[in-house]
């Protein structure tokens, strides 16, 4: 995240168009980092490398792997799982175990080949992990800024016609 990006995001979040609960949630997320507590160091390293291939991002900017680890450590769920699949943590461990031990050191092509095989062999765990990483990615204020998404600046509201914009909608983003 460049200093210009950070400044633009903070200006929007602290501006008059963001409600207090929205501001609180997004400011807390902007620099959120998590200590590894659930996975082993080896598993965590594979998970982080896989996460970068699945949902391309810079782990120094977005701690998506830490988010997954933190959720599993806290025992939070998303409300359901496929009955045929083991609990999330076990399912993810099995998915990671199916990847080569030196996965993190492989080149991009070899990593993608291994992930494609894992998608076929562990479809439910792969889908759940992909969705979880995607959520973390899309919900991050930095992604919103880079995608020109201003929906969180909802005070006082929007016009809805495709050609009618508020200035803050048009100008937000790189």
């Amino acid at each position: 995240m460049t200093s210009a990006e950070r400044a633009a995001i903070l200006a929007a979040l602290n501006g008059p168009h963001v409600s207090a609960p929205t501001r609180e949630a997004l400011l807390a997320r902007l620099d959120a980092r998590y200590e590894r507590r659930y996975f082993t160091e080896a598993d965590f390293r594979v998970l982080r490398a896989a996460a970068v291939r699945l949902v391309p991002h810079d782990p120094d900017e977005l701690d998506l792997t830490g988010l997954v680890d933190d959720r599993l450590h806290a025992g939070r769920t998303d409300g359901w799982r496929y009955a045929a699949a083991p609990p999330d943590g076990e399912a993810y461990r099995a998915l990671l175990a199916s990847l080569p031990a030196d996965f993190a050191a492989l080149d991009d092509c070899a990593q993608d080949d291994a992930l494609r095989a894992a998608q076929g062999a562990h479809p439910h765990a792969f889908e759940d992990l992909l969705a979880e990483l995607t959520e973390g990615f899309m919900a991050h204020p930095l992604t919103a800024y880079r995608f020109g998404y201003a929906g969180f600046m909802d005070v006082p509201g929007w016009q809805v016609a495709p050609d009618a914009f508020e200035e803050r909608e048009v100008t937000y983003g790189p």
Partner: protein
Amino acid sequence: MAPERTGPVNAALPDLRDLDVLVIGTGAGGAPLLARLASAGLRVAALEAGVRHPPSGIATDEVAQAGLFWMDERLSAGGDPVGFGRNNSGRGVGGSTLHYTAYTPRAHPDDFTLHSDTGQGVDWPLTYADLAPYYDEVETFIGVSGPAEYPWGGERSGPYPHPPLPVNGAGLLMERACAEVGIRTSPAANAALSRPQEQEGFGLRPACSNRGFCQAGCSTGAKASLDVTFLALAEARGAVIVDGAQVVALLTEGGRVTGARFVRGGREETLHAGTVVLAAGAVETPRLLLMQGLANSSGQVGRNFMAHVGVQVWGLVDEDLRPYRGIPGGLISEDTHRIPGVIGGYLLQSLGVMPVTYATQFARGTGTWGAALTEHLRQYRHVAGINVLGDCLPYGHNYLELSAEPDARGLPKPRVHFTFGENERRMAAHAETLMRDLWARAGARDVWALPRAAHTLGTARMGHDPRGSVVDPWGRAHDTPGLWICDNSTFPSALAVNPALTQMALSLRTADALLSDLRPQQVTA
């Protein structure tokens, strides 16, 4: 995922002895009834597993709003496993209406007579005419916005109380494409206000600001979730709502249900009442009953689980639509209410979408990952959606059972088996073909379809025959004195419309029946 937000759980319970009625659940089943009973002067209280989520605390952020959903793990089995959590559940004072889209189409007269008309499915033990006065009352009270003349369905006694809400980008595209193929469209009926309305117990609800995050909670009170409508009225009329109260068992005495045991703030408590109304929804209601083997002499508890056919079709368009703006579904067509070769039919709605919901559905639905995923998501502002809501027949192979796996509270996780039947597959295929054609006409590219099941219905069906149903047509448990059920577990068939409005109407009807049972002299007078 955010932890469940723990709003203020009022520390001590008020004196709740000598309750006439105890209601379990504060969603579309429990809330209207609670208000009706309180207004009639009964001593009533409701237990709600979730906490309060006042509009002023709602963030415009899907992850921060995860606390609106039932996040205790449920197990999804069968050929078309139903997702729960953020898809089909609710938790909080107001139940799933906190995050419903507030689509409020009425069921059609022929939705209640599917078996008579087709020989398949089941008939309801009541008619459209039985519900019509309650539909009128609910629409007026919660403030439904809609067109002056609605082109489909049964007779109405008058227009919608408020003019329609503005139609957003996806709606305009759908309108144009439907016109090309001769499908009629109309602004939808939606329980969000197009102009301010005074609401007893809450105050002035403002007009909708087109914020578009209805499915993550309304931050202004413009949307008619039950906390700002029927529950506000109920509390103004003396009802007590106990939030943060997870019911773990019904109390019984000599075969009669006399109250409930619940955990609140880590402590186990009990409440007794003359009558208990179970309104916990089509998953939690049968779970509670099955845990105790209650109200199940018919063997029907947990059976006939249904979920609407809910195929969505998405595409990218050149227009900068910004699908976060406006109510998600501004435009509707019910020209497909009956289609050849299929039992029942569906309605068609335009679709706005919040960013995280779209992104995770795209990832799950297409399995896309890597640069292809992020490149697609970068174009979120150009996403246009359209979907259907279709009937679903009850089947023996779709049911809820208790698993051997305990949840964090030590209760058995429910396992829900769901597989669409041949009829639903034909309906979904018909819908997908139609929507792909419409979206091609709208100029959409990268079009993809998400097969999906929406809403939880059935599992404690109503009927006249105690051998084949759990409750009678008003909600009385056939075989268990003191117990009523008032939620969408009682739906004998799915109906080809969103269930919330019908559920609210049924709730008022059940309340009237309960009142006449408790006060027979008033009925004869």
